[in-house]
């Protein structure tokens, strides 16, 4: 087999770039062409001839077709017209009418829009000409003196004096709260303390609580947890590829070690001598946790279940980021099962 030199490959790449191929498609198409050229060289054709042949085959039109809609099916490749008129008389006229139809429609639309714009603009054009004819006139008017009534000062009422409400005795009794750091603990009040006081969010020394004195309950509000700003739009969307891809905390080396430590070869797979890759897909949430683990391609014999188990075992990842914000990313991960020789 003949291997193409780097120089030849560059030449092919330049040729492909001339056809304005999409950057995403370039490596794949380059490899395809290189394979084809290698094959033809092997068959004895000179390089220049092969390249000339390819120029005929891989035209700008073909590549553009791939570019514009890389997901286009072959069935859609030929336009509807080509399908209808395959093997029929194209010269008769209907084919020409049909194929020119989109262009004609576009031209017609442009014309209509232009006319509309002209129609709207016309009065303005004439309007500016007409304004010159209006002559200015002077009208004399006598100004009367206006006397303003003096305003009486508003009577400011003193604020109503509120009767002093006797403060009730209160005891701090909050529902327990899970905290990460050990905070100063307030001992729970004893039953005796609570019997003579009202339950509230803070300790207030005051009058003993009695049944016959009913006061509005003090507000049960815990300390504020700071402002929480939620960016729902970003979080709800799941990315297939983020600007900054999620990563195992510690990088690929740490991940390899983690796998080595935790991945066990399923005995039935080892017995059946099954090897290969299990492809998993999972969501890396904004906080780095792993969810929705799914096997998209497995090799069976317990390997799929083992791979899922280990992935669920993983510590939190570094979440993917889009525009600097952590986002949910769907991540595909191959896990290799290989038996030692």
């Amino acid at each position, binding site marked *: 087999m003949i291997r193409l030199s780097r120089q030849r490959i560059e030449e092919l790449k330049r040729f492909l770039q001339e056809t304005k191929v999409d950057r995403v498609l370039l490596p794949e198409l380059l*490899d*395809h062409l*290189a394979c084809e050229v290698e*094959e033809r060289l092997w068959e004895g054709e000179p390089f220049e001839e092969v390249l000339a042949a390819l120029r005929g085959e891989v035209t700008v039109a073909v590549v553009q*077709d791939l570019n514009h809609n890389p997901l286009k*099916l072959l*069935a859609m490749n030929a336009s509807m017209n080509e399908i209808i008129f395959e093997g029929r008389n194209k010269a008769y006229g209907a084919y020409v009418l049909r194929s020119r139809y989109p262009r004609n429609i576009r031209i017609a639309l442009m014309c209509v829009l232009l006319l509309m714009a002209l129609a709207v603009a016309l009065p303005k054009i004439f309007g500016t000409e007409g304004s010159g004819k209006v002559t200015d006139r002077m009208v004399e008017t006598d100004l009367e003196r206006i006397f303003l009534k003096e305003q009486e000062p508003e009577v400011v009422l003193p604020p109503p004096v509120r009767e002093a409400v006797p403060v009730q005795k209160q005891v701090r009794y909050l529902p327990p709260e899970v905290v990460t750091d050990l905070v100063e603990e307030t001992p729970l009040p004893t039953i005796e303390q609570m019997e003579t006081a009202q339950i509230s969010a803070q300790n207030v020394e005051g009058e003993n609580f009695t049944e016959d004195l009913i006061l509005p309950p003090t507000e049960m509000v815990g300390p504020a947890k700071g402002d929480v700003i939620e960016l729902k739009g970003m979080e709800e969307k799941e990315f297939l590829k983020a600007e900054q891809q999620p990563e195992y905390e510690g990088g690929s080396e740490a991940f390899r070690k983690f796998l080595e430590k935790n991945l066990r070869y399923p005995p039935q797979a080892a017995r059946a001598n099954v090897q290969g890759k299990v492809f998993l897909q999972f969501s890396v949430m904004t906080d780095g946790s792993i969810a929705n683990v799914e096997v998209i391609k497995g090799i069976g014999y317990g390997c799929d279940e083992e791979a899922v188990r280990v992935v669920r075992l993983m510590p939190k990842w570094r979440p993917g980021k889009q525009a600097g914000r952590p986002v949910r990313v769907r991540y595909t991960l*191959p896990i290799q099962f290989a038996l030692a020789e």
Partner: protein
Amino acid sequence: MKPVTNNNEYLRGTLKTIVLNLLAEKGRMYGYEITQEVKEQTQGTITLTFGALYPVLHKLEQEGMLLTESVEVDGRLRKYYSLTNQGTATADVKTQELGRFLDALQQLISGAGPRVIPATV
């Protein structure tokens, strides 16, 4: 002699199935390998063109039937395609469907009856 390759008309509807079926058979292939395999198996009767194959591969990938892996070979990135579990199931169904369709076509072309009369030379 160059074989007649104007089969595009028939190829259009079946290309997807052909690709799925080939991948089910071979496991992992890249684009050029697929064209060569088709050419070889049909002795050159069917040749897939550049512009026909890749849209189908990309479409199938988008639909979640195929999985891709890029591997560096001779300094070039080679994109390998293989079937996902969903792709394997679809390949099965599609191949069976096509088989039934071909049988029906055979009956249509060979005349009223299901029997095929061998032509005498």
